[in-house]
């Protein structure tokens, strides 16, 4: 988890003074002049008066989205005759006690503007007064090159009549990466010593912008010559040059072999695989390997697991019958390599009983079908890459989606109804064309719309999900290809170009916008065949970077100057131990699973899988990749690895009973676990240890144990 301190609401110092000349506006408009002061002061945030019940009898709409209501709330607290006696001035200036503490000073422009508005009779403003069209932030992108360097930002409000106004002093700023740039309430961004880009979120009167600025602390970057020409590398290397980060070298064959096995199939290469690949002198052997791996059935197993996480296939929601049908269907999709647009289309238009029809489970939740609201949230996160669920409760301060957008999306899914089957745990999806979703804000039926677009107009009685699924999976759809490409990129590279992968929004920009567009275009151009995109990524130098860091890219976590190590997923780690020791796990009640990766359900009782944090599938989110103390205790003292290492018919017993000499045995062990032979010094050290031990079996057990618990083994690197 990268701790990105994005200070949405906590702004430390509000000590702006009023040295700048102050002219009150000619025509007042409550929402363009007064609301920004309430937002700037934090008055309308959820912990304060923006709370659903207000605070101490004074309630404002959250983030100022309902100016009429705020106006009504405010006018009772004004004293038009003697403006300075108004509570809305005395409280924030702490001239009377204020539970919220001081918000702005009496000599600030905020106080003066509010006072001028009261003096002017506190008008709400004319309906035809110019409204705020957008805000602009200058300067454009640039890279700062020393620590402590400041960059003053200027925020300009552009009104509907094309007039412009400097509103820097009334804008709220925050940085999405404070190790790179911190931004003061005055709008001056200052470099902090970190290298990279940071997006500065700027808010004013309900409008926002997120310009990006860079900083580098390095003198120059060493890039390979000639520069790599793969389209991915062109984008990645352009940014590295801009930020003066020197990329890592290309990884070794050993690393590439193990990395692609784990990424594409979730398995380790065997010792024989390793020998063959390392010995091959074919110039395109890396590409050939990727092709072979993509055709293995284990590819489908791993993708099924990844998608079962994403779709939250869970026997608590879908019951055993449901998770099995979901699992079988997903596995077939990936075995046959059905393209992702078809997969999405099948899920979104599913009908029938969920124990028989796999994709019907997309619509289920605790024995019954999901509400349209739940389906909207899930569809947003899985296929659109947006967390529209936040807009169910409130308009998001940094997000363009409104409550109305949310309910319009939910309305797309409102025709689905549940029909009981003979099995009480099963549900049958049918259509009731006339069911609607009520938007609580308007108390009226929400109009079904494509997200951010037109009304979905289907003939009476028609399934509007079909129209929606066609819109979504069209090549030119602005969400789908990008969301899918980003997920595939994250799976391969350890980090999404937009991260988290389900949180696309203007204020969470991609690190490499052009690369994201490129990947989306490629994927759509491949007719959504994800294998082809995986091949495309695996062929890049970027994917083939070594994971070893150099001095300038040690701290790089998002520009792909090195390959970021990933801790094996719980299931993959469990299977890796079983593979190395040649002792497959058995799964009670799940005879179809030969490996943990093939478990259809994440409810299978296993402390090992729990402690290594398999997805709980309660919420859609990335798995944890940190190593916890409980995990470490389980490495050290857990019974599974010990039993598997020491069992009489296991792999180690076979090796020990074979004519292999100690050094050959070591080599075999290294190839089977780390996909590399031991380094000469390592080999000497271990052979000395073996020679001086009085129990050959025990010392090899200890070596194998240590490898299975080592960082090099546990991390895909």
């Amino acid at each position, binding site marked *: *988890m990268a*701790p*990105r301190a*994005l200070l949405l*609401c*906590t702004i430390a*110092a*509000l000590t702006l003074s009023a040295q700048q000349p102050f002219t009150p506006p000619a025509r007042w408009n409550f929402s363009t002049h007064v609301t920004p002061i309430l937002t700037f002061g*934090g008055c309308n945030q959820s*912990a*304060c008066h923006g709370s659903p019940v207000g*605070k101490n009898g004074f309630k404002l709409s959250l983030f100022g989205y309902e100016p009429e209501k705020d106006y009504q709330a405010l006018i009772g607290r004004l004293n038009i005759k003697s403006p300075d006696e108004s509570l809305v001035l005395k409280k924030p200036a702490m001239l009377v*006690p204020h*539970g919220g*503490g*001081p918000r702005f000073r009496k000599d600030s422009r905020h106080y003066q503007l509010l006072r001028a508005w009261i003096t002017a009779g506190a008008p709400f403003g004319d309906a035809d007064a110019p409204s705020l069209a957008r805000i602009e932030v200058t300067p454009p992108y640039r890279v700062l090159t020393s620590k402590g360097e400041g960059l003053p930002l200027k925020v300009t409000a552009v009104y509907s009549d094309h007039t412009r106004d400097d509103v820097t002093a009334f804008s709220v700023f925050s940085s999405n990466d404070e190790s790179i740039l911190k931004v003061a309430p005055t709008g001056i961004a200052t470099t902090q010593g970190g290298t990279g880009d940071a997006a500065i979120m700027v808010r004013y009167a309900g409008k926002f912008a997120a310009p990006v600025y860079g900083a580098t602390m390095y003198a120059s970057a060493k890039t390979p010559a000639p520069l790599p020409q793969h389209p991915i590398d062109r984008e990645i290397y352009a940014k590295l040059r801009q930020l003066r980060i020197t990329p890592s070298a290309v990884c070794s064959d050993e690393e590439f072999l193990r990395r692609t096995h784990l990424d594409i199939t979730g398995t380790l290469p065997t010792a024989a695989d390793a020998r063959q690949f390392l010995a091959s002198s074919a110039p395109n052997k890396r590409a050939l390997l990727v092709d072979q791996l993509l055709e293995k059935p284990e590819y489908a197993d791993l993708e099924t697991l990844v998608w079962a996480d994403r779709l939250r296939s869970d026997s608590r929601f879908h019951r055993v019958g449901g998770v099995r049908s979901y699992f079988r269907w997903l596995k077939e999709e990936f075995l046959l390599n059905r393209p992702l647009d078809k997969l999405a289309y099948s899920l979104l238009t599913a009908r029938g009983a969920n124990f028989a029809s796999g994709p019907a489970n997309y619509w289920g939740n605790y024995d019954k079908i999901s509400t349209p609201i739940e389906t909207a*949230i899930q569809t947003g*996160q899985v296929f659109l890459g947006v967390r529209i669920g936040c807009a169910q409760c409130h308009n998001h301060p940094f997000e363009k989606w409104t409550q109305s957008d949310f309910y319009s999306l939910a309305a797309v899914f409102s025709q689905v109804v549940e029909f009981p089957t003979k099995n009480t745990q099963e549900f049958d999806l049918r259509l009731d064309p006339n069911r609607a979703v009520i938007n609580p804000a308007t108390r009226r039926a929400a109009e079904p719309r494509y997200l951010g677009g037109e009304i979905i107009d289907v003939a009476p009685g028609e399934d509007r999900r079909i129209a929606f699924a066609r819109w979504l999976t069209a090549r030119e759809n602005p969400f789908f290809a990008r969301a899918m490409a980003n997920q595939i990129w994250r799976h391969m590279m350890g980090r999404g170009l937009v991260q988290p992968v389900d949180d696309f929004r203007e204020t*969470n920009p991609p690190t490499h916008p052009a690369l994201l567009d490129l990947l989306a275009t490629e994927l759509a151009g491949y007719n959504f065949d994800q294998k082809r995109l995986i091949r495309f990524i695996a062929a890049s130098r970027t994917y083939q970077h070594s*994971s070893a*860091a*150099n001095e300038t890219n*040690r701290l790089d976590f998002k520009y792909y100057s090195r390959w970021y*190590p*990933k801790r094996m997923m719980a299931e993959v780690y469990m299977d890796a131990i079983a593979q190395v020791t040649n002792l497959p796990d058995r799964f009670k009640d799940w005879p179809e699973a030969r490996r943990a990766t093939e478990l259809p359900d994440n409810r299978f009782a296993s402390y090992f899988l729990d402690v290594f*944090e398999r997805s709980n599938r*309660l*919420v*859609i*989110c990335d798995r*944890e990749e*940190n*190593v*916890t*103390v*409980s995990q*470490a*205790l*389980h*490495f*050290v*003292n*857990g*019974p599974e690895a*010990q*039993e598997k290492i*020491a069992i009489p018919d296991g792999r180690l017993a076979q090796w020990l009973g074979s004519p292999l000499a100690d050094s050959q045995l070591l080599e075999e062990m290294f190839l089977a676990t780390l996909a590399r032979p031991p380094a000469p010094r*390592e080999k000497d*050290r271990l052979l000395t240890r073996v020679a001086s031990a009085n129990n050959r079996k025990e010392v090899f057990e*200890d*070596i194998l*144990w*240590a490898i299975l*618990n*080592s*960082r*090099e083994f*546990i*991390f895909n*690197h």
Partner: protein
Amino acid sequence: MSFHFDCDGIRRRNFLKIGMLGLGSPSLPQLLRAQKKDAERSFIFVWLGGGPPQMDMYDMKPEAPEEIRGEFKPIPTKAPGIQMCELMPKTASQADKLCILRSVTSVDLGSHERSSRYLQSGVLPVPNMDFASFGSIYVKEKNLHGEMPPFAGVLKPIERGWGGGFLGAEYDPFMAGDPSEKNYQVRDLLPPKGITLDRIGRRRELLKEFNEAWRAVDSEAKLNSYAPSVEQAYNMIFSEKVLKAFDIHQEPEKIRDAYGRTQIGQGLLLARRLVEHGVKAVSVWMGGWDTHAGNFSSLKTKLLPPLDQGFGALVEELAVRGLLENTLVVQIGEFGRTPKVNKNAGRDHWPKAFSVVLAGGGIKGGQIIGATDKHAAEVTDRPISVEDLSATIFTALGVDIHRVNHTPEGRPIAVVNGGKPVVEAFA
């Protein structure tokens, strides 16, 4: 001077100033005192999963009609004027150390899951993320690390919300299991069968060689979390103190009997033992309180006697051993239960008004705060929101309630979401 941004923005350094302005209530200086000697506070969180019935325990209504007052009678307690259920004599004998909040009021969230998430974190649950439990926030805010795991969980968590949530798995409690089991031992603390400590030591050395040989320069957070975790694991395995802390078998039979040979009894005993050995937060989970049917028979046979015996012994022992002053004990469930007994002699969910019990940690005992109406249905005096309760807990633990943590996506989450501490609870 830098100003604090959150509402109710009374940061410690602003306290006196605001007090001088006349805003502060008279007990603010006392709160300040409570916050000052915070360094060594411990926290025992006793969770009654399912929802304990307020009117059958701490808020009895003997004057109410039978279908409301139920089957049990109140008895006097050690604290003058405080009564509680006749099935809780041990707890009653410690009432002088207890502060009973009778007017806690929550929001109707429908399910156990959502209500449990609310009452374990103090933050209203949202669908797309998990907030952090009180214990997780405490050890995070105080940056508590050491030989002992800072946060332990005893018995089995009941509903979601007991762990680190958005703070990450490293703030989950270390799971100690069920100490009432006959051959109880903590999972993975002792080596697997047939492996001596000596051999563990040799393997440790080997593992260290492997890890040092590979990839020295790396700042990847997830990669780096490996080394300290493994180190901590070995320290625990080789630590006499840790093994001893979890070894409940070292307790004299007399003491084990005093807590009762039940899951909750032994669980609370282990909690005391852990606190004594330096664990800073312990959650003890007891289930079975969802008495929709047979409320009274369940309370009489399965629930109240074991809880009473264990909880009474815990409070008494903490006091005798001088630990109570610096240990905050909270007894709590996700909601209360309906005043009116249903047709199955049960009581249903009631989030509107219920009781929470506090002890130790600077809390003033022998008092009742708040009141409900004659049916224990509505709060009539001193409503205490879940956020207020959260503010009270963190104030007692010396945590700045205005501190803000961020989710990995950058969403700011305040330690307390806008509540005010119940100042009169403090000594």
